[in-house]
Structure formats: C-alpha cells, structure tokens
C-alpha cells in the first residue's frame, strides 16, 4: 500500500513493521500512485504533471526506496498545456510501457524505465473517433481521458473512458478500436469484471452501468443502468469495484452516489452483496479506497477479503469476509488524533506483568473488531525485536487516555481509558457507534474512530503520570480534576472518593470567572477492566492542572494549577496541605481564562494574520496549476496588501526585566518528590519541591509514617525552604542528585531492584532548571554552585527538559545520565550532569512548529516523540544504543501476478485542507497490489537518526557528530498517523 501526501512524500506500508518513505524534491502534491506489476517499482504523478519512478532496492540487507527517474510529458511546441496534462495512468502488465491519458483526449505511450515517448504508438482521439457514429460524435467530442483499464485476460486490449461518456475498447496490436460503448452520462470511472466479459462504468449522476463485451456486437447497448440511491438526484459515484465470488453474488462496491439533497454531505462507500447493503459513513472525506482480493491469476473468482479506505483523517480497513463486515484493528496508522491530543507521557521499559495486564484490558475493548489478520502483508520485517517494552500515553480532549505500544516502529493502540464515567456530562451515554438501523435508507453505518468533537472541553486530559511498578496512574485535566487510578483486571462497581482542594485558601476577594468544576456522579460507578479511578481531587478554583507528580511508594499525589499546589494522601484519602502561590498583585490569574481580554484580542489578531497568510500561500499554490494570469495578478496584489499591512503594524517586543508583579507568576510548572537532605546534612527526609512561573521554588519537608502505621498516622508537611531565583524565569524542572551526582531513582525503582539505591553518604545537590538557566545548588544549604545560562547567551529558552540515560553502544557497562533539553527554537541540547557542560546540540523541530515543540516527550533512554501534524508522531533518537528504525525486505516476486488498481484523487483535493503542517498530507493516490506471498508494498515509518552523544562521552567528539548531524535533517521521521 502506498500513500502519497500533499507535500510530496510517499509512504509505503506492508506487514506491520514494513515501511518506506520517499520524498519528492518538489514539494508538490502527489496526485496518483501506480505500482508497476511485480517490479517493486511505482510511478507517482505530482500536481506539476511530472512523473517519478521509484524503486525498492536492497542495500546491505534491507530494502530502500529510491527515486530512479523523473519525466514530464512535453507536447509539440505551441500546443496548450492541457494537451499533455496527464489525467489517467495505466502501467501495462507487460511492465514495459505506461499509457498516459491526457486532458486533450490523446493517450501517450512511454517506455519504462527510461520514460522515452513512443510516438508511433500514441492513441489520438481522432483515431478513436473514426468509427464512432456521426450523430454521437457531433454531440460530444472526446474530452479528457477519465479512465484507462487493461483487459484482465487479454493484455492487448485496453478500455478507454472519456469524460463525456464515450468508452472504447482499443486493440493495441492493430491500433484500432474494436468496440464502442456510447455512454450518455459523464463518466467517472471504469472497472472490468474478472473474466473480461463485462465491465462496469460509474457516472457523475450517481448511476452505474454494466456493459457486455462480446465479439459479435461492436457497439453494444448497456445491460443494466442503476441509480442505487435514486430516484432523487444523487452525487457522483467516483469509483466502483465489481467483485465476483464463488457463491455467485457479486460484491459491488462504490464510493459516493448518495442522494444529493439529504445525504450529499456524507463521505460514504457502499458495499452491496446480494441483499446486504451497507453504506459505510466516514467522518472525514474519503480520499481513495481499494479492495484486497485474490490475485492468483488462475483463480476464477475475486473473492474480496477486505476493503481499505483512506479517509482524510484516518485509514479504515473493513473485513468483507466476516459477517457484519467489521473493521480491522490497524497495527499502524491508527488515528492518533481521533480526539485532539492534549498531552503525552512516555514510560520506558514496562515490566512484563503490567504490559500483559494492559494488553488484556485492551483486548476486552476490541471485541467489536474483526479477528482477521492485517490484510496488507507485503514485505518482511527484519528489524530485531525491540529491546524493551515502551508505552506512550496520550491524553485527549475528550477525557480519554490512550496507551500505545511505542516499543517498535509501529505505534499500536493497546488500550483506551476514559475518565468520562466519573463525571456527569451532557454527553449521550450510549455508545451508538455500530447501531445499524434496520429500516434506514440509505443503510448508513458510521465507521472509523475520528471524532474531533469533544462533548465537554473540561474533560480534557492535561497531565499523566504512570508508575510502572505499582500500576498506579494519575491523570489530571482541564477543570482542575485529579484522578488516581489502579489497574484492575475485572469489571468493578465502586464509589470514587472525592475531595476538594481549595488552593486559594484564605486569599479573599478573588473571583474565578472561568469554567465551573465538573459535576461528579453520586453513588457507585461501573468501570470496565483496566485502570479504575478510586480517588478524585478537584482543585478550587477549577483551573487547568499544570503539573502533577505521583509517589507510589509514599502513596502521595501532588498537583498544581495557576493558583497553587496541593498534596494528597491517596492511601488515607486525605488532603495533606495546600499552598497558594499567587502573588497578591496578580489579578489576572484569578479571573480565569475568559476575562483575559487582552490576550484574547491578541490571539484573535494573530489568528486572523495566520488565516490571511495561509490564504495567500494556498492561492499561490493553486496559481502554479497553470491557468490564468488573472489569478496571479490577484495573488500579487494580495501579497502586496498583506505585506503593506505588516509594515504598517510592525510587531514589537517590550524589553523589561521580569518583576514579581508579572502575571501568572504563581503558575505551578513543576512538582518533584525527593528523599534528600532538606533540613540538615545528617538526616534526610521525604520532600516535595514545586517550581513556579515566577522563578520561585518551594520545598516542603514531609513526614510519611512507616508502612505498618501508614493508615494510622497522618502524613505531615512543613515548608522548609523557599528559593527565589533572581532572574525570575519560569522553573521547568527540579532534580536532586545524590552523593555520586546521579539523579535520585524513581519511586519503587530500588525496591524492584532496577536501580542502585541512591548514595546518601555524600552531599546531595539540587538542580533547578528555569527557562533561562540551569543552576546547581548544594543541599541542604542551597548555595549556588554552578550555573549554565542559556537564554543570556543564545536567546533560546528551555521548553522541555528531562534526564536521559545514555548507554554506550560499544560496551554494556558504561552509561551516564545527561539532561536532554528542547528549546523554543526546536534545538535539542544534551547537557552533562553534574557539571552542566553542553555536549551537543542539533536542530530537531522547526522553530515555527510551536505545537510540535509543545508536544515533544523524551524517553528515559534518549529518544523522543513529537507531533509533526495533529495526527503523526515523529520519533527521534539521541542515543546510539537505543535506536528504533524500520528495517525490512521486499522481494521481487518471480511469478507475475495480475491485477493492480489505481485511483486518482481529484485535483480538488489539493486546495481543501489547510490545517496541519506542510508535511502533512491530504491528498493521496493509493494503490495496492498483491501477489501470492509478499509484496512490494512496504512500509512505514520510521525512526531516525541518531545522534551521538556517545562519541562525546567517549572522546571522539567532532567528526562523528557532524556526520550524524548531516544526516538528520532529512527528517524521515514519522511514525504513525491517521490519514493526513
């Protein structure tokens, strides 16, 4: 299976783990993709009318996708561009030539792989029209070639469909028309029946027509003309399949054709099999689809097994063999953004036990999926098994958390957790995804998971923390809700303990003008197997939770909002303390998001600017398509206006030192638990650290009763320190280093023997990372020891920071911890601990890609993920040791196999989608073919790049780094995504 994107990338997917990606030099939309039968080659057509030949070549054991040739069809001098504008492509089964249908109605023949035009074999429209009856000819000329189909049995005959309705069967040997089929409706597409005795055409008016092909009648009448959703005017049927089966009843599968007035806005594909008929209703536009059927040339019937549909936002595969035509659970290209992603969290090296429990909880949710194996099975994945089990958790706007298997190349959905059940919402509680109304006509059935409409934005998930050892999960959301959950393998019904944390405490006179807190459900609630909440803490005021920390050993959860932070004992279910961090003069923070008139105005202005800019650029893009100078003129004028406007209102930035009075200083950015020397250097104790937007760090001493009295004595907390960074930049990370300068282990890590216990002999150090500086302090005295200034020297600010463990790829017994830092410029820097030396830096994300930068998560072992579009994560690796990349082989089949299908997706697609980054795609040609064992299609995704670090560790600094850096900008990243 191949998918082309609007930005000129093609991605090939096969069996899970088999994937390739190629990028055209031109960033033009891919319009069509056609596999050359049995050649591991494919041809792409871009919207600049250029053809590109790609092949999969084996190189040091793995296949790679390479561009071999490119070609642009040139007409005779002086001919209009439309004469050579390619509208249909047919790779002939001989693999030697390509037939190119054009807007002029002529069909050019080019030789492969050289792309040499064979002029003597051109099929001109004049030749075609010679024998057409006069009256028909007068009414309509040939117009553009809409479809080209090779005869399934006789490679010397091809069927040519013209847009005005004329269809001819052309004999390649004798260069003449053998049959004329005089259609009266504007043609959309054609499809042969397997035995070549009939073909079917579909039309703009929503009808399809069967035509007989026999040697006695050279100008047959249609056998049957059906408007499936008549009698009222219907939309076009843009693509159709006619699939024979052993039992005699064919499958007729077509896209579109819905009644214009009442269902014209649906994106549907209908499957008709005898009396069964279902119109699969997609939530986003259908770009293309194909059917997987028996490709053995000797097989008598098609026996379709699956339908693969590429919608704009996702890929859906329907099992046509099982009763009820269920969907197939995709092993890759799952729709990440079925509800917008609001946050993500990565957990490395999941213990097997927890992994299995999550999978088993997930499998109970997936019963409505088909059990059929993934039908796209080309290629062989030869990548070694992933070294460890990694989970990527994504929080979504609709209050769900999705658990993805991020160990390997494919991001695969394991389990979906919904927090909605805890709350009372207006949402319709019954899950009517698959209800099939019996008497409904058309028999619509919703498929796919893409559902961008959130019932209640307050449900959105903002922070996630999973303890992989205990199975405790803490999830916090938009309306100040914090849920602590436990993994349970059985369904259960219980009451969720509920507490409220008033973060304003005694601060009087503040009004919260934002949203209300969520209403909770009274009484016991039924939860399905999986993570089940047992504690709910709601912050008051119900502002977005901005930081979250869970300590599964102490059984404490800490949470922070723009008003303050609190600590909750989830064992005793008791609030330990709250601390208000508001500055008395910070009025804005109190009033909630709605009253921030100023910033609202600003953001409105910005979004208008953005819209204007995108309009300009999309117009520009279309202008390239070649018609009037008028458009260009308009564009130029538009650009000028836009430019002028920009000059009139230049963006300016105020230069002012930060003061305590700036707004949002109380915003709690980070929370951290540590067992360290907070009070004096002789005794260590549990502590909680919090960092705010205003550069303040609070440290609390905790007294956690020993395990045997854990339920009897309360947890106590006492403020021990408060540090005000004079540069007042937001604190984004806090970390304590032990006596060996190693970061303290995670809770329970030592108890599970996965980490050495921290060194409590030597003196501990505190690392505070603000957006501008890294600073190391001694403990317990908190005197400044070292610092690294980032912003003052480079003008960039820290966006994400984490400790990553870098192992050596040469020897197993060396590893070290460093800080992995992502800046607002999209650079990634590695900074050594504890001396804060910059080891390496390289550009990773474009600095304009704000959402990409915001979405980045680092793993514990030096990899990372970020969203390159709302639906696609790109994965990168900073470690030479841990590298996940696709490695796969596609063999060239020896036996020829027959069919291939191709589709074209219309020009109109290109303009449509404006959201998403340049790299995301909306327009696809797609294609598929299979032969007996395996195929050419291949794969997906990727991984990439590793940078080295290692080399700096080991001394060989310069050259290695550069080599890697040079490689990385290709950005063949991309790991997963719905169809955008």
């Amino acid at each position, binding site marked *: 299976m191949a998918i082309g994107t609007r930005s000129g990338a093609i991605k090939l997917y096969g069996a899970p783990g088999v994937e390739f990606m190629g990028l055209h030099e031109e960033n033009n939309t891919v319009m069509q993709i056609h596999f050359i039968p049995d050649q591991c080659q494919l041809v792409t057509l871009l919207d600049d009318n250029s053809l590109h030949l790609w092949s999969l070549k084996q190189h040091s054991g793995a296949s790679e996708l390479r561009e071999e040739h490119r070609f642009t069809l040139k007409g005779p001098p002086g001919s209009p561009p439309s004469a050579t504008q390619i509208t249909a492509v047919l790779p002939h089964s001989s693999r030697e030539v390509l037939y190119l249908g054009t807007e002029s109605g002529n069909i050019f023949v080019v030789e492969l792989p050289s792309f040499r035009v064979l002029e003597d074999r051109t099929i001109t429209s004049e030749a075609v029209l010679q024998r057409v009856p006069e009256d028909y000819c007068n009414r309509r000329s040939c117009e553009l070639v809409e479809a080209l189909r090779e005869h399934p049995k006789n490679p010397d005959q091809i069927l040519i469909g013209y847009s005005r309705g004329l269809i001819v069967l052309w004999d390649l040997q004798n260069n003449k028309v053998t049959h004329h089929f005089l259609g009266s409706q504007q043609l959309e597409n054609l499809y042969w029946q397997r035995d070549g005795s009939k073909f079917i055409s579909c039309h703009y008016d929503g009808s399809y027509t069967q035509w007989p092909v026999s040697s006695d009648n050279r100008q047959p009448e249609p056998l049957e003309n059906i408007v499936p959703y008549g009698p009222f005017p219907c939309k076009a049927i843009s693509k159709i399949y006619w699939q024979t089966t052993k039992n005699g009843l064919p499958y007729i599968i077509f896209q579109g054709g819905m009644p214009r007035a009442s269902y014209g806005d649906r994106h549907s594909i209908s499957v008709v099999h005898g009396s069964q008929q279902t119109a699969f209703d997609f939530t986003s536009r259908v770009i293309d689809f194909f059917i997987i059927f028996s490709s053995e040339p000797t097989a008598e019937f098609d026996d379709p097994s699956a339908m693969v549909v590429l919608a704009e936002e996702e890929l859906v595969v329907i099992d046509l063999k099982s009763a009820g035509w269920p969907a197939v659970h995709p092993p890759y290209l799952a729709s990440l953004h079925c509800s917008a992603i609001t946050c993500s969290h990565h957990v490395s090296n999941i213990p097997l036990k927890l992994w299995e429990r999550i999978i088993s909880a997930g499998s109970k949710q997936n019963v409505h999926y088909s059990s059929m194996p993934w039908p796209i099975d080309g290629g062989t994945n030869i990548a070694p098994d992933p070294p460890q089990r990694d989970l990527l958790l994504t929080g979504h706007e609709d209050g769900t958390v999705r658990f993805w298997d991020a160990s390997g190349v494919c991001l695969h959905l394991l389990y979906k957790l919904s927090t909605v059940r805890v709350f009372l919402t207006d949402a319709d509680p019954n899950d009517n995804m698959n209800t099939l109304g019996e008497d409904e006509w058309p028999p619509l059935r919703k498929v796919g998971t893409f559902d961008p409409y959130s019932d209640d934005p307050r449900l959105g998930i903002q922070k996630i923390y999973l303890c992989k050892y205990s199975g405790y999960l803490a999830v916090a959301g938009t309306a100040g809700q914090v849920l602590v959950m436990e993994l349970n393998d059985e369904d259960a019904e219980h009451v969720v303990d509920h507490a409220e944390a008033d973060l304003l405490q005694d601060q009087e006179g503040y009004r919260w003008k934002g949203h209300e807190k969520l209403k909770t459900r009274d009484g016991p609630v039924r939860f399905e197997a999986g993570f089940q909440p047992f504690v709910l803490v709601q912050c008051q005021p119900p502002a977005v939770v901005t930081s979250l920390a869970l300590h599964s050993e102490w059984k404490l959860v800490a949470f922070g909002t723009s008003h303050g932070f609190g600590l909750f004992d989830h064992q005793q279910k008791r609030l330990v303390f709250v601390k208000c961090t508001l500055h008395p003069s910070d009025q804005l923070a109190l009033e909630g998001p709605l009253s921030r008139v100023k910033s609202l105005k600003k953001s409105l202005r910005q979004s208008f600017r953005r819209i204007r800019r995108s309009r300009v650029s999309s117009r520009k893009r279309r202008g390239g398509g070649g018609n009037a100078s008028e458009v260009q003129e308009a564009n130029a004028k538009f650009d000028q206006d836009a430019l002028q406007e920009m000059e009139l209102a230049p963006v300016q*930035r105020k230069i*002012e*030192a930060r003061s*305590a009075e700036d707004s949002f200083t109380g915003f709690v950015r980070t929370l951290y638990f540590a067992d360290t020397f907070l009070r004096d250097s002789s005794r260590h104790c549990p502590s909680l650290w919090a960092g705010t937007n205003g550069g303040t760090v609070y440290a609390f001493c905790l007294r956690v009763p020993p395990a045997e009295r854990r339920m009897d004595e309360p947890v106590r907390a006492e403020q021990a320190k*408060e540090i005000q960074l*004079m*540069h007042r930049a937001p604190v984004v990370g806090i970390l304590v280093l032990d006596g060996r300068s190693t970061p303290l282990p995670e809770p329970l890590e030592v108890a599970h023997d996965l980490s050495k216990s921290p060194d409590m002999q030597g003196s501990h150090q505190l690392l505070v990372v603000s957006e501008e500086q890294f600073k190391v302090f001694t403990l317990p005295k908190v005197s400044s020891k070292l610092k690294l*200034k980032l*912003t003052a020297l480079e003008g960039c600010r820290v966006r994400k920071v984490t400790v990553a463990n870098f192992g050596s790829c040469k020897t197993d017994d060396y590893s070290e911890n460093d800080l992995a830092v992502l800046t607002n410029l999209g650079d990634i820097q590695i900074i050594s601990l504890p001396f804060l030396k910059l080891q390496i830096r390289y550009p990773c994300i474009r600095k304009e890609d704000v959402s990409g930068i915001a979405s980045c998560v680092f793993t514990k072992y030096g990899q990372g993920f970020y969203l390159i579009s709302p639906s696609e994560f790109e994965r990168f690796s900073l470690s030479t040791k841990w590298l996940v990349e696709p490695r796969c082989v596609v063999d060239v089949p020896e036996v020829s196999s027959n069919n291939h299908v191709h589709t074209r997706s219309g020009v109109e697609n290109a303009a449509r989608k404006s959201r998403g980054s340049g790299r995301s795609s909306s327009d696809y040609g797609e294609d598929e073919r299979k032969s007996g064992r395996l195929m050419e299609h291949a794969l997906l995704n990727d991984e990439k790049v590793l940078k080295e670090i290692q080399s700096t560790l080991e001394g060989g600094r310069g050259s290695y780094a550069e080599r890697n850096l040079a490689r990385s900008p290709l950005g063949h990243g991309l790991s997963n995504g719905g169809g955008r």
Partner: protein
Amino acid sequence: MNRSFNKSQTLRYLECSAVEVKSKFGAEFRRFSLDRYKPGKFEDFYKLILHIHHIANLEVMIGYADVHGDLLPINNDDNFFKAVSSAHPLLRVFVQRQDEVDYSNFGTNTLSRKKKALVTLRNDNLRRRPHINISMPHDFRPVSSIIDVDILPETHRRVRLYRHGCEKPLGFYIRDGTSVRVTPHGLEKVPGIFISRMVPGGLAESTGLLAVNDEVLEVNGIEVAGKTLDQVTDMMIANSHNLIITVKPANQRNNIIRSSRMSGSSGQSTDSTASHHSLPTSHVLQNFHPDEMESDEEADIVIEGGLEPQHIPKLHSLTSSSLSRINGSSLSHRLQRDLVLNNNSGRESNGNIHKLLSSLKTDPRHSLVIPRGGIEEDGTVITL
C-alpha cells in the same frame, strides 16, 4: 560672617533668584548667596570657597547635601549648577581637605540613591576639561555608560545599562526591520532589529544614549544577526541586570569623533576627547567576560523555614547591608587602594569599584559627614 558675594559679571540682586548658601569647613560656617539661574562657573565658585574660608593654599573637595540628604560632590559646572538650582531653600556646602576626603561618604543613602538618575551625558564628556578634577565617576552610581569607544567603529555605540537595585523600568521596545549594508556586491538589504519605542521615564530614555530607530547589533557581546526578534527579546531580558547593547544610532550626528591623532598613536591621549573618561571604562570592556557579569548579578534568595516573605527585594537589601557591616572596614581599605591605582594608572576597573561601593553604601559608620542636625533641619528621613 554673613557676607554677600557679588559675582562680578553675573550676579544681580533679585530677591527671588538668590540662593542662600551655607558652607562648612571643619567646624566653621560661612554664609553667602548665589543667583539661582546664573550661578557662574565652578572654577569661580571653587575660588570663592577657598577665599571665604581663607584656605587658599589647600586642595579641597566640595560637596553639598541634596534634597534627599545625600552628600554629593561639586566638581564641575554641571553639578555645580545642579546643586544651586535644586537647593531648597538653602544650599548646604561641605568642604573637606582633599587628603581627608572619604569617598565612601558620597551618595551615602541607599534609598534615596534609587531616586536619583544621574546621567553621564556624552556631551559632558566632551565638555570636560582635563585640568578639572572630575575623576570620581565612582562617586555616582552609574546607570549607564558608553563603553569600548576605542575599539568600536565610530558609527557604533556600545551602551551599558545598570539596573540593579533600580526601580526604574528598562523601558524600551524593539522591532524587526531592514537595514542597508554595504557589501562587495553593492548595497544589500538585510533584516535587523531596531529600537521601536521608548517608555517615557524609563532607564533607556533617561540615559539619552538610545533612541528610536537605532539598530541593535549586539547584546552583551553576542551578535543579533540571524536571530529572531523573540530570541533577541529573550536575550535582553535574560541580561536585564546588566545589559550591554551595541547600537548603530539612527542619528549619527552625535557620535564621538575620535581625532586622527588619537586613533593613530595608541598611547597618546589628547585634550579634546573623552579619552580621560573612556580609558578606565574601556578597560572594563576589554576584560569583560561572563564571570564579571556574574559579579554584578544579584544572588538568588533562599528563605529557610516557613517564613512568609512579603517583600523579597527588601529582604535582599537587608542581607547585603549586614554583609557590608561585617566587611565594611576592609572593603573601604581596598577601595582606597583601588582609587589610588585608578588615579595613578587610570586602569582600574570601574565595575569593581562600583561593586565595592555598592556594598559599602549602607554602612552607617561612614555617614559621619552629614551632621545629624542638618538632616533634621531638612526633614529628610534617612534610613540607615
């Protein structure tokens, strides 16, 4: 004792414009008056002081108490004029023998220090005559300075803004723009960063050294070329404690013109330029490195226990004053030595002296020069 002084050419007897002057040398007082609007030249005033106190053969240092009660020096026309024009109602002048002067007493008070914005205008530099003793820039807390005059092209200006302890906003805005560069291929338009607006009353405006449409070339030694507006903004804010901006002024007419002699022979200083002033400061710059910047920066505040800090900045100033109490004497000793060095070689780092001074500034034992009574008389409250 109450003798009127008639300054030959300027003084007119107008009730309203007369300023009463009370001059104190040792235990002796002299009283006279000056014309508020035409006080005359400092040199004349200096001679007058020597004359009326009958100390013609002494080298003295003249100071006055300003409205805040600070002891400020009078040693050139400008501060003389300032002293006279701001006297209200009485100008109290203190005369000390040059060799007895305790420099640390000048500008004693921390609180009032924040309010005065003494501006070292470029024009002053030009007007100064080397034979006038103005060698005490360290008597003022600098709020800004032009530095590196000798190593920068004449079209550029490097300005240092000192913000520590100052409540004044930095007060300027920057924007994107295009500037024209001369390249081997002719004129070329390149993107640049420009000052787009000054906040009235802000530090930037009060220096007079920065103006709207000046192009920003460097921030604390780092070129801004190739950086975005946001990056430059972040750099400036991160360096706001000690911001050094190199600009290409939009108005090139006020540039310091170095004479050819000056630029030609390195060691020769000349009469007509600001070299006297710029030598020590340029030294600061040449030696400028991050560590030095560090020393200018305020330290983070750590509060132990459950203290509820209401006003962090005040706590900070408390700590620094207690510190200076402990170290005061030795610091002042060092200071003296530094000053000697400075006078001799002209090579002492302004920044270091400044640092020493600022740590001394609240030491109560050094505020002896201002008599207690005098303070009460004026009703100015001095917090020590």
